């Protein structure tokens, strides 16, 4: 059983399109995150939800909209995709909204905008 699963694993799309990435965790964790890993492998947090409530919203264009229908799911919708959105997006979860518990990461979604 995969603890944190993301779909799709690969996503190739044209500029201007709208796309979604889905994430599900079966660990019973309360908190979920989206991280972006750019071409230089630098990881930066985008959003965090705790029990469906948004608790971290970094400086991210408002074309990115996270949605958490329940505490086991956190989806990421991206409108009007741009070339610079090409990256690997990682979903993660933790037991509580404190990093001391450590995060469990999904395997990533590689988004390529052409």
């Amino acid at each position, binding site marked *: 059983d995969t603890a*944190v699963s993301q779909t799709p694993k690969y996503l190739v799309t044209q500029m201007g399109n709208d796309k979604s990435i889905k994430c599900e965790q079966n660990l019973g964790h309360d908190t979920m*995150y989206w991280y972006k890993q750019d071409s*230089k*492998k*630098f*990881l*930066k*947090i985008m959003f*965090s939800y705790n029990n469906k409530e948004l*608790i*971290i919203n970094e400086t991210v264009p408002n074309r990115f909209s996270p949605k958490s229908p329940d505490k086991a799911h956190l989806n990421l919708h991206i409108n009007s995709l741009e070339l610079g959105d090409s990256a690997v997006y*990682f979903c*993660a979860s933790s037991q509580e*909204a*404190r*990093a*001391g518990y*450590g*995060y*469990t*990461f*999904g*395997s*990533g979604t590689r988004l390529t905008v052409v």
Partner: protein
Amino acid sequence: AQSVTQLDSQVPVFEEAPVELRCNYSSSVSVYLFWYVQYPNQGLQLLLKYLSGSTLVKGINGFEAEFNKSQTSFHLRKPSVHISDTAEYFCAVGGNKLVFGAGTILRVKS
């Protein structure tokens, strides 16, 4: 604010040699420190973490790290590396979120 500096972008080492990957952090709050490993085309896997207590932390795959508060460092070490340790290693500091360093690529050569 929290930040992490990984001092080496790449570390080449021969198989069975020891290795140290260096990490310095900055944090204005209680410090939680982590090392994650990322194998090619995979997600991040937790190697070890420091929350409190003993400054020497042992993790998976024979890795260990030492928390040094005075030098604000959390260097990762392994006494004898294997080819399979070739990967990218990320140091991270956490409070209400994890802040990652830029990563260090460990290349183990035969």
